[in-house]
């Protein structure tokens, strides 16, 4: 236990003083925010054109619901986070082995088991921080750029805000499931590979290869929900939206 604590302290010490950990925490939120801003800019142009032509309709109202943009930005952020975690996990052990710094830790006070456990814990903490930052920033920014509202047609509330939030909460919970698997997969590659370069390229290569072959699962595709890890072309939230709540998202999705 003592060795594990020392290993966690060691990981934290390095993380606070290097760039990679900060990138994992901040990059998904930054990219999601950039996406929201770009969409808003594009939309502002579209609205200006529409207002010149005159009129508005239900589709346009739905399209302006902030929940849709919030979910879209989460999809982007979580997809990026999944890939970053795979890459960082693959890099962490193999890089320290490459430069030899891992030897100092192993010889002195930490067993291999404690060291790997510490890396797992450390990467989970980074993932958690990143998700929290992503959620908060995307939620606030979506709310600033659009308006959170229920789906209303002809004065009747078709889907209430609480229903939408429940669905999104479920989606987020399911979307988080692949992250621990992504971390474990990356670390497995990291300890098996012969160099950091090999580890990162192999981990990302396999991740993308799985994504390609996933299509062969056909109707069983949604069962691999935990479509591990979150894949670039079909983000987890996208799948959840389609399979679990098609009606809702048909309305609010753009």
């Amino acid at each position: 236990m003592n060795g594990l604590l020392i290993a966690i302290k060691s990981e934290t010490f390095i993380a606070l003083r290097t760039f990679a950990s900060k990138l994992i925490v901040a990059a998904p939120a930054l990219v999601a925010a950039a996406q929201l801003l770009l969409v808003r800019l594009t939309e502002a142009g579209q609205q200006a054109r529409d207002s010149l032509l005159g009129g508005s309709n239900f589709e346009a109202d739905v399209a302006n619901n902030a929940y849709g943009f919030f979910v879209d930005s989460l999809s982007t952020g979580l997809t990026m986070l999944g890939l970053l975690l795979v890459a960082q996990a693959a890099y962490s052990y193999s890089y320290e082995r490459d430069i030899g710094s891992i030897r100092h830790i192993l010889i002195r006070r930490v067993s291999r088991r404690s060291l790997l456990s510490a890396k797992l814990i450390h990467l989970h903490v980074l993932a958690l921080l990143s998700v929290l930052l992503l959620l908060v920033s995307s939620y606030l920014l979506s709310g600033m750029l659009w308006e959170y509202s229920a789906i209303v047609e002809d004065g009747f509330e078709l889907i209430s805000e609480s229903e939408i939030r429940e669905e999104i909460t479920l989606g987020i919970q399911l979307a988080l499931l692949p992250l621990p698997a992504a971390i474990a997969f990356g670390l497995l590659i990291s300890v098996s590979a012969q160099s950091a370069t090999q580890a990162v390229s192999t981990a990302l290569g396999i991740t993308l290869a799985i994504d390609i072959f996933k299509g062969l699962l056909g109707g069983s595709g949604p069962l691999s929900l935990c479509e591990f890890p979150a894949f670039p072309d079909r983000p987890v939230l996208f799948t959840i939206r389609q399979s679990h709540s098609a009606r809702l998202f048909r309305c609010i999705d753009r």
Partner: protein
Amino acid sequence: MQALSVTGLNKKYGSFAVLDDLNLQIDKGSIHGLVGLNGSGKTTTIECILGLQEFNSGSITALGYPPPQLHLSKGRLVAIFDSPSLHPNLTVRQCLEHALLLCEKPKRSTEDVETLLGISRFRDFKIKNLSLGNKRRASIAQALLGDPEFIVLDEPFNGLDAEGVDDVLELIRTLNRDQGTTFLLCSHQLPYLEQICSHIAILHKGKISHSDTINNLLGNTQTILQLKTAETEAASKVLETISGAELIDIDTDGYLNIRISGADSIAINQAMVENKIPVAELILKRASLAGLFREITSEDA
């Protein structure tokens, strides 16, 4: 008391046996040098001792711990490797602070070791921006933060300038004398090892071919006296009369190579003078570790 005991160590890379029934014992408080040709298995031996490589058979205990449990010694054994093994994006100070986290009982502060190794002015430099010599100093500084009983150094003099080498040699002497720290030094710099080591082990063909105190090892080798004179024949006859002196050969430069065991250079010179043989040069070639090493490793070449 032994700091290290290696018995019957075997290590193969594929079908190639790097270490073949290697035995090595190191007493506490000694400075033990491990020498060998390139590829003789010195680093492999060290990595097996430190639990960084698995071995095929044999047993190792360092400070009473087998390699997989070495971390239980809680920093009583530390190692300084041939490559500096420091995180390149940390500064020197950060590296030392990181190492401090790993110390059970820090004995020196980061400032102390920076001063000791002469790297105070580089404390805010990133490791990747340091010269190899200063990286090595930082690496040694890291090891000295705690209170290690046993320090393993792989190629400690690589990249160090003359002043750096002197500092490291003095540091090793001081730690050994004042705190009884045991050292295992693995290096190709035989003159430095000869200066500092109490014991030498020569690793050749996967085995420790010779292991003893440096005095015993060098005591068993012969001292050669080179004598130059115009009257080589007369000098040869005089040498036959001196007990403990044996003429080996006369080389192409006209030097008489004389093996002396028992006799000394003064007696030989005196005999030459008494026989009115003019001596142009008299060179005493003392036994050296380098000479012994060459002799041993060239035997089977």
